């Protein structure tokens, strides 16, 4: 039988530099660890099947099948995936907005979900003083803001989900990137799941993502770039600026052109088809050209319900997303899909790579993207 355990994960993902550092394989066994943002294999495991392999967002998954499993529907909307509404939103609280990356919408929604007991615990991404991301379990609404912000670096958030520990009756909400969302959906349908952990993950908030950086070389570069000063915050400005703004402890802002940091983009991001976390209950991203607001896409009933109740409660403010922005969003999302498919084709992995798509779907994405691009 073909190996579907750590051996296969190593040869098919780790050695090919396709690890997304999502954390779905961590804290399941003693053989894998995340160290300085890198997945390290400490020892060999000879099991024929393992959760590390099954959970990995870069081991084989049939997109259409998993769509059926999650939403009970076919994968038809090739631009943004299934959605109910797309809005422009922000947190009502200026306090939350100030501490957050963009508009504070994720913090506000997760705080609301905890307070209203949609969930009892949230798995969020915390960053160390050295900006190394790692998962953190939050149970008190007032702890949410400790995880606000982003360092644009991939981190093993889902390790915290695996690690828990969780009470049997707890409902869990997770905020993650598209690869982390995909990993969770795979965990949910895996025949190897040992506990009902994923049955208790009731809310998945997905983030928009075009790529993530590899921690060690990126931070090393950045440290040199800012002459060794202590980095407080990182912020990427949307086009046309395309800058990474690095704010250091001495309140100095360093403008680093994005092209300088592109070499640190993870290889695996090049084969990712998902910009908008299409398998989440609700996904959140920036709005190009309009500062201080986020795009929110609601996808499931629960996602829709939380947003509307948060709006009703005055926790978040919403506006319709301007048509032009929606058009851009769809184009960008499609372009990511197209780029990924072409990369997979170049790698000879279009047919037998990690993602299985019908020829029809591949054809539609490639031709539609071409149309949008023109």
């Amino acid at each position: 039988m073909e190996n579907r355990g750590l051996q296969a994960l190593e040869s098919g993902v780790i050695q090919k530099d396709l690890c997304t550092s999502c954390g779905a394989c961590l804290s399941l066994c003693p053989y894998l660890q995340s160290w300085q943002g890198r997945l390290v294999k400490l020892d060999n495991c000879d099991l024929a099947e393992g959760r590390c392999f099954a959970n990995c967002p870069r081991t084989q998954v049939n997109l259409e099948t998993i769509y059926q499993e999650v939403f009970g529907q076919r994968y038809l909307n090739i631009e943004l995936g299934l959605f109910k509404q797309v809005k422009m939103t922000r947190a009502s609280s200026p306090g939350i907005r100030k501490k957050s990356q963009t508009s504070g919408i994720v913090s506000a929604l997760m705080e609301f979900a905890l307070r209203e007991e949609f969930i009892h615990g949230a798995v969020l991404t915390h960053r160390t003083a050295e900006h190394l991301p790692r998962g953190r379990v939050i149970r008190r609404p007032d702890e949410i803001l400790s995880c606000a912000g982003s360092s644009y670096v991939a981190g093993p958030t889902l390790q915290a989900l695996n690690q828990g520990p969780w009470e049997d009756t707890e409902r869990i909400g997770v905020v993650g990137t598209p690869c982390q969302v995909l990993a969770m959906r795979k965990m949910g349908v895996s025949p190897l799941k040992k506990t009902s952990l994923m049955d208790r993950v009731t809310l998945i908030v997905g983030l928009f993502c075009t790529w993530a950086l590899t921690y060690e070389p990126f931070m090393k570069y950045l440290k040199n770039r800012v002459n060794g000063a202590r980095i407080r915050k990182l912020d990427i400005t949307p086009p046309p600026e395309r800058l990474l703004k690095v704010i250091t402890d001495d309140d100095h802002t360093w403008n680093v052109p994005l092209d300088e940091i592109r070499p640190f983009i993870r290889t695996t991001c090049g084969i990712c088809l998902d910009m908008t976390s299409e398998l989440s209950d609700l996904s959140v991203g920036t709005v190009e050209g309009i500062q201080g607001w986020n795009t929110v896409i609601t996808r499931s009933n629960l996602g829709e319900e939380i947003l509307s109740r948060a709006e009703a409660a005055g926790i978040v403010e919403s506006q319709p997303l301007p048509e032009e922005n929606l058009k851009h969003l769809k184009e960008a999302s499609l372009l990511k899909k197209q780029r990924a498919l072409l990369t997979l084709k170049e790698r000879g992995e279009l047919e037998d790579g990690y993602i299985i798509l019908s020829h029809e779907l591949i054809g539609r994405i490639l031709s539609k993207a071409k149309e949008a691009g023109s």
Partner: protein
Amino acid sequence: MSVLSQESPGKKTLFMGNEAIARGAIEAGVQVCAAYPGNPSSEIIGSLSQVAGELGLYVEWSVNEKVALEVAAAASFAGLRGLTAMKQNGLNVASDFLFNLNLTGSKGGLVVVVCDDPSALSSTNEEDSRPYAKMCDLPLLEPSTVQEAKEMTRWAFDLSEELGLPCLIRSVTRLSHARGNAELGRLPKNRPTPYFDTSCPIVPQPVMVTHKGLHEKIKICQDRFEESAFNFYLGTEKPELLVVTCGVGWMYTLEALADMGVENRAGILKLGTTWPLPESFLTQHLKKASRILFIEEVDPFLENNIKEFCAERAAELGAKIFLGKASGNLPDIGEINPDIVTRAIQQVFEVPYEPRSSQYVQEAAEAVSLFAPIRELGFCAGCPHRATYWSLKNALIMDGRDGIVLGDIGCYTIGVRPAGFEQVKTCHAMGSGAGLANGFGQLERFGLNQPVLTVCGDSTFYHAAIPALVNARYNRSNFLMLILDNSATAMTGFQPHPGTGRTAMGLEAPVVDIEALCKALGVRVQVKDPFDVQDTTETLYDLLQDREGIKVLILKQECALVRVKRLKVLYKVHVDQERCIGQACGCNRRCTRIFKCPGLAWDPVTGKAQIDEAICTGCGVCADICPQSAILKETI
């Protein structure tokens, strides 16, 4: 009462070969004995240390073989009799001194016993030490039996004193560790008082004069050997084959000839004094046959020297057919045994004789496999080295730069093998890990990106690593040295060393503090407990990130066997059978498949791990390794 100190002349007593050597030295009136332990020589000084107090001897474990030889030589220079013993590698260490000592000569009887380890049963190399005797023109004796081991040692002191030269004795594992009867001689009554005559400096200069003098002394030695009872011939006047043998070859030859029933066809020329050659004695016997078979262990030492001699005396001795290692009658590596000797003689006589079935080895291997599991060379249960290599493995993986671990000689050499997670990548001489690290640590300038590490045991540190560390500091090399301080010379049998606070004679000694010594060199030093694998791993990782200069991490934890001998068990350990998930995803037998301490056992019936209480030494490390926290340790 020890067989070494019994005063019963004429009594036949059972000795181990090494004890017989020690007894011979005692009967000869030895007063100073020094050595660095090394198999198969360790029991010589080990047994002497047991009777040192009773017999009024001075016995020490020295830090290395060169110092040991110098200690024994000092006794000789002051008119006393001195003995040193070492394994074959030890003579390499001591040889620098030896190659001056031959020129200066000695006064009181000075005997250097070298126990070779053919087949490298407990060595890193296979080396025949006998060519040293030829190289530095010193007398060489090779005992064949336990009785001879005792007698030759006693005589070697007289010979040494008469010639004014140290005398070498070569033993091998199968003599040193064999047991046999030897007849006791008298214990000495009077012992000289040491005095060094300062009017006669002992220096090799003028070298041309002392070198010439050495050649004259060895000529006198040759004369003595002509008369030696340790050389004799056994056989008819016109044998079809002359077997020339020495050492353990003598007994094997006797056995082989008797087994084949060809005693009357072959003569045996048994030599006990193998350098310089007793030329007249040889000439007399080499005439007896034209076919000569050499039976000796490891190198063709006698074979080549006698061939050379026969060439010189060709006119007198005539043409000979030489059989031995060069002809392929005997293997040119490894130990010999009666089977090998039998086959060699059988080839000559073409007698149809099988010492044992040609299928024997295969059949024996198959039979053994039915009862005994395959066993890797491993660390003992609870060995701190396993924990050290575990942490080292993990730290190096986390570091991700493919660090190079340079090792050398000690129990920790097993770091090369799966038991040490195959972390160690080189092994040569004592202290060579640190020496090689000096060199590797200079290669970054040429683009070497791999971190450089070396592992070194405490005894090896004192033996040969200190100069390498001084060199590293001085020349600004860059590496991490792990001193695996288990407070024991464990591999050779727990002899005390400068870190143990005890001498060979059981007296209290000041502890030479490794940490203070390293700190005095001005290098970064940390001390950790290897049983705390988390802390050790993190410390190792941090030290690996320090890219400048020499870092020393002392991993201090007593050897498990020493600890158990003191009945000191740290924890009582057991496996919670409910929590253990065995081979399932999430563990897959991490304890018995990866960590593999022999104190852990896998029960294939229940599919759970267990503790083998008979051998667990209670270090508790496995409790920290278990991902399920199913291994529980309770403080005793």
